[in-house]
């Protein structure tokens, strides 16, 4: 039982890193990066292959660099080739399918069972210590905290402000000294690298990477993000907003775990996340409709 809970916790935290990537691209920059699934897998496969070559620490920066490249490609298609942002994401996502198989050595699966990873490294480091059985969660927590601190710092720098302004008011940015295209490129590169980090950690955590390790991660992370959105207000401090993303990821995992309890089969995970996203995004629409109806009825009453 505690095994199930700690697994849920660990997976929730790895997922939370992808949610943080979306917080930057979707929430702050206001762009839905449809290459997220492919980028996640890219991080997983690059990280796995580099670890397989005997460089477990290098696997992290390598995966993040790969993710940044993917993000830069998406923005390049928009900026320099005039392709719509959604389409640019889809194109890169499709291209990454082939690239990921090529990276994994023309295979759709890489096995890391006997390979040193950041997890085995931490396990060796802790060896007999009293924390030794928590090595997984320690590694994951470390990365989650690093990313929270990084984003909180980054989004408050002048560069971060310019990125947020680009997401908040394109019209304003168009007549300001901020270069919106450049900001989009930087933000997508950073969010791509964070997303790839998440994929890299998942592959090393479950000791294998596969071509569909990232399939559906965009919807799952979006669901978590939108759940997290419930817990903060417009004027909450940035750090609170960021932490709410992590919280949203947990709540999503709990909802998922509960539905498993109700004998919903595991393959339904993606249906559940789709439902959550659809409902969460349409909620403001329904709320407005409801308000209008109420207003209408009130006016009929007064006539």
């Amino acid at each position, binding site marked *: 039982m505690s095994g199930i809970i700690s697994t849920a916790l660990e997976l929730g935290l790895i997922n939370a890193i992808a949610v943080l990537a979306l917080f930057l691209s979707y929430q702050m920059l206001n762009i839905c990066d449809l290459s997220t699934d492919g980028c996640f897998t890219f991080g997983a496969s690059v990280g796995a292959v580099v670890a397989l070559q005997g460089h477990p620490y290098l696997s992290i920066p390598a995966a993040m660099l790969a993710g940044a490249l993917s993000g830069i490609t998406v923005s390049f298609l928009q900026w320099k080739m005039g392709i719509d942002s959604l389409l640019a994401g889809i194109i890169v996502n499709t291209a990454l399918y082939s690239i990921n198989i090529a990276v994994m050595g023309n295979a759709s699966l890489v096995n890391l069972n006997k390979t040193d990873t950041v997890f085995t490294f931490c396990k060796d480091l802790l060896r007999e210590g009293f924390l030794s059985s928590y090595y997984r969660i320690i590694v994951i927590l470390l990365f989650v905290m690093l990313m929270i601190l990084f984003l909180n710092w980054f989004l*408050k720098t002048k560069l971060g*402000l310019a990125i947020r302004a680009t997401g908040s008011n394109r019209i*304003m940015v168009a007549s300001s000294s901020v270069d*919106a295209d450049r900001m989009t490129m930087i933000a997508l590169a950073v969010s791509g690298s964070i997303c790839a980090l998440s994929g890299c950690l998942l592959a090393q955590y479950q000791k294998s990477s596969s071509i569909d390790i990232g399939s559906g991660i965009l919807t799952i992370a979006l669901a978590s993000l939108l759940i997290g959105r419930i817990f903060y207000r417009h004027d909450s401090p940035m750090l609170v907003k960021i932490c709410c993303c992590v919280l949203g990821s947990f709540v999503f995992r709990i909802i998922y775990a509960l539905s498993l309890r109700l004998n919903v089969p595991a393959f339904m995970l993606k249906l559940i996340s789709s439902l959550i996203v659809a409902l969460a995004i349409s909620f403001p629409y329904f709320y407005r409709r409801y308000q209008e109806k109420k207003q209408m009825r009130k006016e009929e009453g007064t006539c």
Partner: protein
Amino acid sequence: MLRIERISKTFDPNSVNAKKALDDLSLIAEDGDFITIIGANGAGKSTLFNAIGGSFFVDSGRIVLEDQDITYVKSNLRAKKIGHLFQDPMASTAPDMSIIENLALAGMNKGMFSRITANDRDYFREKLKELDMDLDKRMDTPVRLLSGGQRQALGLLMATVNKPQLLLLDEHTAALDPGSAEKVMELTCRIVEDNGITCLMITHDMNKAIEYGNKIVMMDQGRIIQTIDKSTQKNITVEDLILSFRNRQGKDLDNDRMLLGI
């Protein structure tokens, strides 16, 4: 000094909708000028400002600001020297960012990775105090919670905090309620005067055009049809403007939004 030499701009050329919005237009603004621009809807006033701001390149002609030819300089580079404020208060600020973050984005001249320090906060607090709208006490409030007048005042501060060489005001008080409009106009005059900023202002209020401008420019069909210098024509009235337009263009300066003030 701003020197505009014979610029033209046609939108959608080679189509049935081709529209010559700027037609061989020249204009000079000396340092410290406050030029007001009037003209009917569609005369090309906003298009003139967009050409100066660089949201498109002109088809022909030159634009020179402080001896630098900016005709083909990208808009975000021009924005470092030119402040641009629009009619819509929503267009000049980022609603999801706080007041201080908006101001810092516009006026914090430090590196990419610098953050807002306590000194910056003090500096911007003093600037906000000058607006006299109590915004200095709400620096961490998201801008979306402000009123239109407050947002426009903040936008004005953002556009001028770096002392631009030129300020473009495109009917920036037209969407505000009368009280806020007056307040923002008063702030505009103060800031422009204190910093000695060269300013062009589009307005549909002819009384305001006469009151605030040291020069009044009348536009029609993409051209400047008359420039009135108040230092030589001191007692110009709204009636004079209307008569002069009729004499030159053979039609009335008709504009349902134009406040004729008679």
